[in-house]
């Protein structure tokens, strides 16, 4: 998988627990352009282990001199966001993946409704620059806990003008999603990125209101679940890998030098899907990708977030 070597040039605390990072190509060359909603996977060397987290590119999408990401320090971090907050400073060299878009705007939408919760604002910042440039109709609804958590509010006001609406929970209460989705014209698409309950709630409400599934777009990056250790036997590579309790299957395989495919590392895209040939226990799925039927069949797994309660699993990789 092709990668980019970058150098961090600026780190700024922009809100409670949120830092904003600016990075340029290490050799000073232009970076690839990207489409709004794209993310990159940042590789971090944490105590000799390579840790990879996906972060949305904030744009603007017409700037290929630097990439911008924002990272919220997670209370229950497995190390990635803490590393970004505590170890990364101007001058730090990092390796990132090429931009990938699993949350792009639908170019035939009549209107775009963007709904952000907290740090979930980041993919919309790049989407907005595309929507502005293309002259599409849109509204941005940004909910956050309180004024101290309102990262990038000024930038958003400048970019969106009267198309942006803000919902500090401690002042206005929660954003009423039912009301918001009830009054949109046919042909609208809604995009949501935020905490799990917000994303799940919006999807449920949209479905109840009769929104077509293909008009509802969401992005949430799940952190891999921890659990009991187990052994994975790889058929094609003819090797065995022990998955420790605090690493995902994918991470454990990467540690062992296996070049396993992945894109989102968050159980959303399905790129890392692998066939389970044998398992002497139960698969524990944490992804958003496999269908109920596939879960019942118990012969596929997304190793980026899912694992098993077993002693040994055989996969076709």
């Amino acid at each position, binding site marked *: *998988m*092709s990668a980019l070597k970058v150098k961090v040039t600026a780190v700024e605390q922009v809100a409670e627990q949120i830092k904003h990072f600016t990075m340029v190509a290490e050799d000073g060359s232009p970076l*690839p*352009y*990207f*489409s709004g909603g*794209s993310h990159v996977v940042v590789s971090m060397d944490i105590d000799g282990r390579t840790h990879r987290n996906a972060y949305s590119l904030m744009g603007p*999408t017409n700037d290929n001199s630097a990439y911008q990401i924002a990272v919220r320090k997670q209370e229950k971090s497995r190390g990635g966001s803490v590393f970004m907050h505590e170890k990364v400073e101007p001058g730090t060299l990092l390796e990132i*993946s*090429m*931009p*990938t*878009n699993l949350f*792009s705007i*639908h*170019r*035939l939408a009549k209107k775009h409704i963007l709904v952000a919760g907290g740090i979930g604002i980041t993919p919309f910042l790049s989407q907005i620059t595309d929507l502005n440039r*293309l002259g599409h109709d849109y509204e941005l609804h940004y909910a956050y806990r309180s004024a101290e958590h309102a990262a990038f509010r000024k930038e958003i006001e400048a970019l969106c003008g009267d198309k942006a609406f803000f919902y500090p929970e401690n002042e206005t209460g929660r954003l009423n999603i039912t009301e918001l989705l009830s009054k949109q014209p046919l042909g609208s698409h809604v995009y949501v990125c935020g905490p799990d309950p917000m994303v799940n709630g919006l999807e449920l409400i949209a479905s109840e209101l009769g929104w077509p599934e*293909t008009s509802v777009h969401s992005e949430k990056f799940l952190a891999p679940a921890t659990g009991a250790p187990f052994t994975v036997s790889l058929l094609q590579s003819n090797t065995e890998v022990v998955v420790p309790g605090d690493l995902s299957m994918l991470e454990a395989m990467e540690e062992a030098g296996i070049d396993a495919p992945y*894109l989102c590392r968050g159980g959303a*895209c*399905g*790129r890392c899907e692998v066939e389970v040939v044998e398992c002497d226990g139960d698969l524990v799925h944490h992804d958003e990708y496999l269908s109920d039927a596939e879960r019942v069949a118990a012969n596929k797994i997304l190793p980026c977030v899912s694992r098993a309660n077993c002693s040994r699993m055989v996969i076709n990789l």
Partner: protein
Amino acid sequence: MNMAFNEETFRGDFTFRNSPESVRRFPYPFEEDEYMYSVNIEQHTSGEPGSVFEHPIDVDEHYVAECKERAIVLSEDHTRCVALPHMMDAQWDTLELVMTSLSESYPSEFQLTIDGDKWHWVNKPLDIEDHFVFGDVSTLPMEPFEYVMRQVQGDWVIMDQRDDDLYADMGMVTGQADWSVAFDAGMSFKEWHAPVPHAPEMGIFDRALKYLLHLQYGSPVRRTNWRMCVNPRLDTSSETYDVWGTDNVSATKENAGDKVFLRVELQALFRLPRSNAIAFSIRTYMVSLADLATYPRWAKRLNRVLRSLHPDLAEYKGLNSFKQPVLDWLEPLDDGAFLEKGVHPE
């Protein structure tokens, strides 16, 4: 390197020809003596110097003549160039892909100078030089997709990604194997491929679509496809079937060597950066049976592939009206010797 370009035609007197070097680099498609569809997708990484895989976009001795042929087709029927309105970002992406690739691969023939959004493009083989503002359509003589497509070989279809599907929303198709971009415009991936026999029930399009939806910027992929034709006619489109359809009954055992061509499509897929669309290039290489037979293993294997080909595939590939003369021509060249796996010539 200064490239030499053939003066040749793909219609009328059919003066198209391959130099010996061009025959040697022909992307022969058959690894084994039998052929069936597969998702034969591989990384489009740089191949051996001189091969058609050396550069992301191959330019060869037919470049100038193929661009002229495209201009003729467009002057007769401009519906071969389709670009739906939401594809403007993809138009510029495609222009960037072609210009950066050609100028990096063939710096003596093509030069691109970028100063912010001010671009300067020099195409020496076609004697074109333009200054324009990237993103400003009014600074080019025509829309960016058509502009750049008139300067590159092969047909191109640009697919918009939405609803977990790929839609053929833009295309420049003037050298196609019996299909029509005006007919297919706006179709989903499976609609577009619906006429292919047996592939859907083999799950090929499900797998290919899933794979392509995850195609990454910077990691293009490729595959080959093939068919045969009588006369080196690039424009065998549905629109002009009345013009070329009768060619198919003009092949005989005696003339097949010079008149019948193996026609291979090198298909490459590139993720585009600004639009998140996918550029699908279909580059056609043609070689006469006589030229092909300068490498005996290629002729022997073609004989075996055609004899064992599933009848539905022969029908779909339009081979039925001239398959017999081709087999009659090939048979004396095949001594039945064992051929090792692989597409390489002797």
